[in-house]
């Protein structure tokens, strides 16, 4: 799982290999997407309670991913300093 999946979830496969970090960040999950996610879970047959829990997981996942993505900048800084 990587930022690429977040692109793909937006159905923009053409951008998979052509993006930079800024584009990737702006393509990550937004608050306005949450109701759509919940509706999609329900349409896919996920129960009422589990759909709500899945949305909660999506929020945690997105916060964590974004924080990690921002922190990942240090990898290249370490590489440059070597």
């Amino acid at each position, binding site marked *: 799982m*990587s930022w690429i999946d977040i692109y793909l979830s937006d159905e923009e496969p053409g951008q*998979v290999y052509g993006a*930079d970090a800024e584009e990737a960040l702006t393509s990550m999950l937004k608050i306005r997407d949450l109701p759509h996610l919940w509706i999609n879970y329900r349409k896919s047959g996920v129960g009422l309670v589990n759909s709500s829990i899945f949305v909660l997981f999506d929020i945690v996942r997105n916060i964590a*991913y974004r924080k*990690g993505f921002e922190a*990942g*900048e240090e*990898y*290249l800084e370490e590489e440059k300093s070597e």
Partner: protein
Amino acid sequence: MMGNKKTLSDTSVVVTTHERMDMLKDLLDSFSRLNCLPGEVIVIDDGSEKEVAPNLDLDTYPYTLKVFRNEEPKGPAGARNVGVHRSRGEIIAFTDDDCIVESGWLKNLYSHLKSGDEMLGGVGGKVKAYDDDIFSKYYEFKSILEPRPHDREHPNRIPYLVTANCAVTREAFMRAGGFDENIDKAGGDDCAMSMRMAKSGYYFEKEEDAIILHRFKKGFRNLYRTFYRYGKGGRYVVDRYLPL
């Protein structure tokens, strides 16, 4: 041939492990149930406090099992590179020590890879949840460890491989330079390896019938940590390897 099972003698399975002896034993047992056995299984004990090799009876498995040890942990990318360099197979399959493989796993990855052209560098399989808790259901429902097809003209192609369930050709792997050891924790290491291969012109495909069961970690703390690592590795991949 081992018993009445065919052995795919030109395949190696590479597994790295760190402090998960019981899970590793379950994985090794599941290899015994494969309908086609690997030529060899290479286990890299990546600096586990309790050494792995003395706790395995190597002769009880119906395949050749070799265990090597890194005294100091190198991380999954570095450990897998060691595993590949220790292996001999032309086809190298990867899975994780917290997985269980289904019986057709290796044969289906192998057949798919062999049926492709020379630029098919790797094949990724299906990852199901081993457990039935809500976190496992989420990971499976969202296909977290299954990259989605990304190329409308080639609907079976996937953008990258996941080391929980994939196989690569040795030629493609070596030509691309293997795993990037700058990523010292799980998350992004497999994607970076795939991007190296993609930059060398290789592509990847999905094999739905190569199935593994994965023990996903439970709890919010683990959910956060897992995706933090994925995000961190993902950033490295973007900055270092993209655009292709």
